[in-house]
């Protein structure tokens, strides 16, 4: 039956396309109506047939529109990507139906049946999510245990640091050559001072707040920011060291990289807080947060180094030859010829490492620092708010996703901006 119907060579394919699209739409419509509005178009049929009918109709529909070339863009696209053969068509339909079926319950849980009003657990009466929980704990998720009336200090510090980050764009052209110097050395120092004096306080009439009280998303930002800024130059030095002609430097670099890549981050963090102070003199004090930042920087530096080494190795040998033949020494050759090209090539790899770094920051929970995921873990064990872990984790997932997506978008931009033809 179907074979004669689909003998497309001898008949006008246009009608088959129309019929196929019609059947396909009917099948989707049926599923959509049923899952969103509980309207069953096929309730006159026996149950078992009603269940599989959309699948069968959609399958026949897709079979009908499957022709080599129709000239209609969207249909060609469907045929090429999701309708290449019967099996693919079947999978396509299953996936579409699964998505349609899953949408209404998740939407109603997250939005329609959810609660956001009120100040306590009792306000959450609906069957959906209890966003009241996130609302009440919002300040904690953002600022941790930092005193409420001092939150302006964190906000100001962040605005200052971000503002200074954009400072480079407004430099005059004749100062542009100092840009790298600014971002690699001056900016981290200024940012550190701003964060130290504003958030930590203790001078200029500001109350001192110990780092144990810092937390939430602001701590995520602080840890990621400093680790990102420091691990990149470290990785660059290690990558160059690993390719050095001097055996001593090469072995040290290889040893360093292999050591840090071989140990799990969680043990490194644990060591930094438990073992490290034991080796220090009695009166020497280093803040827990600083130790954690150093530990993550050393750890991720090794990964950065390997990413950058990939870029260095992919440059043709002729580039080195040409730079040398012009009388450039090691540093001039690398600064002007090799690194500008290699770093462009490793933007995706570096971005990968940086994303992993941001998502590794929740691990600092093991040393008692509670950034956003850590605050969640604390909040869900609060006796007044038991049973809302789900909402909290979804909230944190969304926030992490936004941060990471922004970072990867930015890396695509950089890639396009610095693309050169070979």
């Amino acid at each position: 039956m179907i074979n004669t119907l689909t003998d497309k060579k001898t008949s006008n394919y246009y009608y088959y396309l129309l019929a196929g699209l019609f059947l396909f739409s009917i099948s989707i419509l049926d599923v959509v109506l049923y899952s969103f509005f509980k309207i069953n178009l096929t309730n006159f049929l026996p149950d078992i047939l009603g269940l599989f009918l959309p699948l069968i109709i959609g399958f026949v529909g897709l079979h009908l529109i499957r022709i080599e070339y129709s000239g209609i863009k969207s249909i060609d696209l469907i045929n090429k990507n999701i309708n290449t053969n019967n099996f693919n068509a079947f999978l396509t339909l299953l996936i579409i139906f699964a998505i349609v079926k899953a949408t209404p319950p998740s939407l109603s849980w997250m939005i329609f049946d959810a609660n956001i009003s009120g100040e306590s657990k009792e306000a959450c009466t609906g069957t959906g999510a209890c966003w009241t929980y996130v609302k009440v704990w919002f300040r904690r998720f953002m600022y941790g245990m930092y005193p409420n009336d001092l939150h302006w200090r964190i906000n100001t510090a962040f605005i200052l640091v971000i503002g200074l980050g954009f400072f480079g764009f407004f430099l005059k052209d004749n100062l542009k050559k100092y840009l790298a110097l600014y971002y690699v050395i001056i900016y981290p120092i200024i940012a550190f001072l701003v964060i130290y004096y504003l958030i930590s306080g203790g001078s200029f009439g500001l109350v001192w707040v110990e780092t144990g009280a810092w937390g939430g998303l602001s701590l995520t930002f602080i840890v990621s920011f400093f680790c990102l800024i420091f691990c990149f130059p470290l990785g660059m030095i290690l990558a160059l060291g690993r390719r050095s002609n001097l055996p001593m430097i090469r072995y040290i670099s290889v040893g360093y990289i292999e050591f840090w890549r071989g140990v799990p981050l969680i043990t490194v963090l644990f060591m930094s807080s438990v073992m490290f102070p034991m080796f220090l003199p009695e009166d020497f004090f280093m803040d827990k947060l600083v130790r954690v930042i150093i530990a993550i920087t050393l750890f991720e530096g090794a990964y950065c180094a390997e990413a950058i080494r990939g870029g260095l190795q992919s440059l043709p040998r002729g580039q080195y030859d040409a730079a040398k033949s012009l009388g450039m020494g090691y540093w001039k050759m690398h600064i002007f010829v090799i690194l500008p090209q290699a770093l462009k090539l490793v933007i995706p790899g570096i971005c990968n490492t940086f994303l992993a770094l941001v998502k590794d920051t929740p691990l600092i929970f093991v040393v008692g620092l509670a950034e956003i995921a850590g605050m969640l873990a604390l909040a869900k064990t609060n006796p007044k708010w038991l049973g809302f872990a789900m909402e909290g984790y979804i909230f944190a997932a969304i926030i992490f996703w936004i941060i990471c997506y922004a970072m990867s978008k930015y890396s695509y931009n950089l890639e396009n901006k610095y693309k050169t033809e070979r």
Partner: protein
Amino acid sequence: MSEPIIKIENVNKWFGDFQVLRDINLDVGAKQKIVVCGPSGSGKSTLIRCINRLEEHQKGTIIVDGTELSENTKNIEQVRAEVGMVFQQFNLFPHLSILDNCTLAPIWVKKMPKKEAEELAMKQLTQVQISDQANKFPGQLSGGQQQRCAIARALCMQPKIMLFDEPTSALDPEMIKEVLDAMVNLAKGGMTMIVVTHEMGFAKEVADEVIFMDEGMIIEKAETKEFFANPKSDRTKLFLSQIL
């Protein structure tokens, strides 16, 4: 011949167990033009790469303009600043414009003021007739244009000696002529040149001496006319009969 500007004495070089250069002796006088030819794998590229120490020789001495090439990095950089080199694969810096390619080394190695370096670069680019491409990037140029830019880039360092490592081998036949013309002009300007090439027409027109190498040895070294008219060794005769 005046005091040689390049003195190569008993130079030997090995890649692992494989000996690429065997007892090379060669003196090059100032303003001399020498063409090195020979079958592939005969060590001719390695020889000229040894002259600015892109390759190290293991035995013997190489003295370039009074400076002996040794482990001393300062010496090497000094020699490299005086010896320009043009490669088979052009090796322009793809992330810099043509003008920046030419000014990079003068500014940072010779500490030339930027203005002066740019003027010099434009002069050299005009010499090789690509001054109109100065603001393009290497990837936007044809092979012949890239190679001429590479010549200009080397000349911007105002070298005393120019080395050419098969400068036309990676080019389309149509573009070979424009590069060779630039090299002929350079030769007429009185530059000391050592050219590894298979372009025998160029050798006949420009070279003072032709060297034939095989298996890491200099088989024959003769004045150009002599070399083409009556080559002495059988190996050279065979090579010439195949290439001409």
